[in-house]
């Protein structure tokens, strides 16, 4: 405790220095001049309490951590680990089938708002899974992932605006465009490593956003692009009236009365299908030679080179494929919102997607899905605490990193096994 005293005193002092001028002093405009006034006595009480808490926490830190370590940590996989591989596979495939079924039936039983939120979650799942290829599997820290999301969204918005291209045609184009941007960016920057790569990708993300913001004549700049066509189902629209010549209306074809919920459910199912497609492709990829090469490259680049693996090509493939999924997600996002502007593609989005990957457990698909749900749903649930939302969000992240630094469901990569006949 003696040893902690100096540290605790210092921490308390820092807390005071930080909080007193910010909270304890107010600037008040009195006529033409600005005066400094002390805050309410209540505020000073809070500041004193905060300083006290920090001081005593630091003082008794060791004892407290002994106490908390006695609390049992949540254990997510009890029982399951002891199963044999064949049984695990069975449990896994039945489990996923059930989950997909539930995800399909679920929207018919809940409110419109919930479905809308779930669709948003699915977009983040897709983005998380895509970034997971780059960060989790190939080990390349990309802080500008949102740029490819923006490229996908604007691809569809612009194609729809200027050429009247439909969602279904634009979807693959958006993916290809994003992949192309990933390729072009990746070519020069993948020689860089770690921190340098992170900074360059961060810059790239900003360049794309600012470019979209400033080419007002093409993209509408900060005003964005509005009234983007919604996706159709085999030429059936989900609106009240037909917007485009030649299309029919879903509720008329089905012979049911109009309900705006149908559109929301349709978008949800569409997102779900896109996510399932993403999961399927990535599951295959990690078992393919290129997946193995990503992993190997993350582990030891020099050994890879000595074995004849072209590191630029392999990193580039991860970057390109990851970008393509962001492109798909962006295209869907544009179609769902019907309106996009550069404001949707700020750095904070990149940070959230990266947080999803890290929280979920690098390289783990199930973890990413879980984390995407947590990161999207929790802030919504905490809507009443409006002002403290970001605070709670941050607190959650800190607690997560203390308790489970490896993520919610750390990656259990499918190892190739030698089966002896």
């Amino acid at each position, binding site marked *: 405790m003696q040893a902690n005293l100096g540290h605790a005193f210092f921490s308390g002092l820092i807390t005071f220095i930080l909080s007193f001028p910010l909270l304890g002093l107010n600037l008040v405009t009195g006529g033409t001049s600005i005066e400094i006034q002390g805050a309410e006595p209540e505020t000073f009480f809070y500041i004193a309490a905060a300083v006290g808490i920090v001081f005593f926490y630091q003082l008794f830190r060791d004892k407290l951590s002994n106490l908390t370590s006695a609390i049992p940590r949540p254990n997510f996989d009890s029982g399951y680990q002891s199963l044999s591989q064949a049984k695990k596979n069975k449990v896994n495939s039945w489990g996923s089938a059930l989950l997909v079924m539930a995800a399909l039936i679920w929207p018919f039983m809940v409110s419109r708002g919930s479905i809308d939120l779930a669709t948003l979650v699915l977009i983040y799942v897709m983005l998380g899974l895509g970034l997971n290829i780059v960060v989790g599997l190939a080990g390349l820290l990309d802080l500008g992932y949102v740029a490819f999301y923006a490229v996908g969204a604007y691809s569809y918005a612009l194609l729809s605006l200027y050429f009247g291209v439909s969602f279904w045609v634009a979807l693959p184009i958006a993916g290809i465009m994003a992949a192309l941007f990933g390729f072009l960016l990746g070519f020069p920057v993948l020689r860089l490593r770690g921190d340098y790569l992170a900074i360059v990708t961060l810059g790239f993300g900003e360049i794309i956003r600012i470019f979209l913001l400033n080419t007002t004549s093409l993209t509408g700049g900060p005003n964005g692009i509005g009234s983007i066509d919604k996706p159709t189902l085999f030429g059936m629209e989900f609106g009240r009236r037909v917007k485009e010549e030649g299309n029919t209306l879903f509720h008329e074809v089905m012979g049911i009365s109009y309900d705006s919920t149908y559109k929301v459910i349709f978008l949800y199912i569409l997102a779900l299908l896109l996510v399932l497609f993403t999961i399927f*492709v990535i599951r*295959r*990829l990690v078992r*393919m*030679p*290129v997946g*193995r*090469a990503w*992993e*190997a490259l993350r*582990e*030891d680049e*020099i*050994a*890879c*080179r*000595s*074995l*004849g*693996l*072209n*590191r630029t090509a392999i990193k580039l*493939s991860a970057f390109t*494929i990851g970008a393509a999924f962001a492109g798909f997600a962006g295209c869907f996002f544009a179609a769902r919102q019907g309106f996009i502007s550069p404001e949707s593609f700020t750095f904070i989005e990149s940070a959230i997607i990266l947080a999803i990957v890290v929280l979920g457990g690098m390289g783990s698909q199930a973890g990413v899905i879980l984390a995407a749900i947590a990161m999207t749903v929790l802030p919504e649930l905490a809507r009443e605490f409006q002002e403290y939302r970001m605070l709670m969000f941050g607190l959650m992240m800190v607690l997560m990193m203390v308790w489970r630094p490896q993520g919610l469901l750390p990656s259990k990569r499918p*190892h*190739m*096994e*030698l089966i*002896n006949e």
Partner: protein
Amino acid sequence: MSNDTILQVQDLMMQFGGLIAVNGVSLKVDEGEIVSIIGPNGAGKTTVFNCLSGFYQPTSGTVEFMNEAIQALPDFKISLKGMVRTFQHVRLFENMTVIENLLVAQHRHVNTNLLAGLFKTSGYKEAEEQAMHRAKYWLDKVGLTEFANREAGNLAYGQQRRLEIARCMVTEPKLLLLDEPAAGLNPKETKDLDNLIVSLKEDYHVSVLLIEHDMNLVMGISDNIYVINQGTPLASGSPEQIKNNPEVIKAYLGEV
């Protein structure tokens, strides 16, 4: 046995700023030969390896591999041409299983077409099966079959050394560069390594260029030995000649 030259190095020089690490080294490896490079610590042996395998760009000099100049090629291309190396410190993919280590090494043999893999075409499956087969064969050869599904980082040191050689061999190289393969091995393991290297030469017709400090091993299996001291060639010849060369003895033991 044919006596075609597989590797011909002439006047190799490697300069790092003011330091000349390798100066005027020439050497030759014939097909099916085991050639060793020896020399005191810091003599520049590993630098020679790094130049040959493309990890360094030699300052001057030529490296001809199978009658083709390769000194300006990037490392992975040299590896693809059939010159594969190991490292002084084992470099395995530690978190991957033993069998996966061997599968990654066969990247050149398998079908890396993305669409073929996504749709699991028959050509893709066949290539994967062959890779698995080759991996299994070499695991058996180096006696690691029972550890196939274990993480490579959990193997004992001697086993890791053997796995590294197996990982080179699944690439089906023509010339194997081994950088101190016996370092840290016990006498029995060294003996096994000795047998393995001879077997690579006799059964698989792989030429071997070896850096090693274990003189029993070197003298026992080498067809030809080059001695390097302070970056410059000191002597070359058969094991007998080297053993009796006063210059070599002086370099190793100092003035007597």
